[in-house]
């Protein structure tokens, strides 16, 4: 497996030690994400809801923002990536994606911890208005029947 033991940046040495044995590429399990995640803060001005649906082995993440008159559908996240907690992981525990609006781009990352989805958004205006980019961190829980 010498093909990835070195590269011109030498960066990999910081990560390789965690992979005890070489292995084929694996598709990370998605089951932990499935469901509708609701912001624990009902008064959030940011991310209100995240829907995670699995179909044909693929995860789709749909987010909703809190608007003045109800939820605002952001659509399905683009460039979705799944992450594990280690490079040897088999189960997904984190996701990233992005949303592109006409005047704003949002980078979205979320990880699961103790039944909570910790989601952050990095929001940058792209309309030349000079508005400040802003960051939000939100805590969401699965919407399950009691």
């Amino acid at each position, binding site marked *: 497996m010498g093909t990835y033991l070195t590269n011109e940046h030498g960066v990999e040495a910081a990560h390789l030690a965690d992979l005890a044995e070489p292995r084929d590429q694996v598709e990370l399990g998605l089951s932990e994400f499935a469901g509708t995640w609701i912001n624990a803060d009902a008064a959030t*001005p940011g991310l209100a809801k995240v829907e995670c649906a699995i179909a044909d082995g693929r995860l789709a993440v749909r987010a909703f923002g809190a608007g003045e008159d109800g939820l605002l559908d952001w659509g399905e996240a683009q460039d979705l990536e799944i992450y594990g907690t280690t490079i040897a992981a088999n189960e997904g525990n984190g996701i990233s994606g992005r949303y592109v609006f006409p005047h704003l781009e949002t980078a979205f990352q979320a990880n699961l911890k103790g039944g909570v989805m910790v989601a952050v958004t990095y929001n940058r205006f792209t309309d030349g208005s000079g508005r400040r980019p*802003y960051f939000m*961190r939100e805590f969401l829980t699965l919407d399950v029947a009691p």
Partner: protein
Amino acid sequence: MSINPSRRADGMFGIAKEAGTLLAEPYLGLWLNTDPATKRVRKLLIETHGTDLSIQLWGASEDGLVDWGIRPAEAYVCTEENGVEAASVFASYDFGFMCCDLQLRLNKGILPMMSWSRFRDDSGRSNTYVREFFYRAGAGGTD
């Protein structure tokens, strides 16, 4: 005017980029990993260049520190629980075989960094996220 995707996006009007850089001032300087045995990022440096921010990382390796190089960083406004505005810093590295997004948010003198790494080299490594903690060089008696 396009509709904002959430109420939070309202009220971000008319403030220049300089304000975000100013909020990032507490991040400036050299930071060391609280775990000296880390196999990942050993230290990082955040600097300003006019109104621009940059970040430089050094990874740990068996042969010493590995310079990841300097990348642009950006300060994002965030509101703390007490209503005070602060900043979170975001930056990305792309080494071809691996892309890495970095999130930094200072918290009471400790600088946590979440790194989200995506591997492109078919090495069998799963994408992974890691949270590490840094302290300001000199604050712990070590430079």
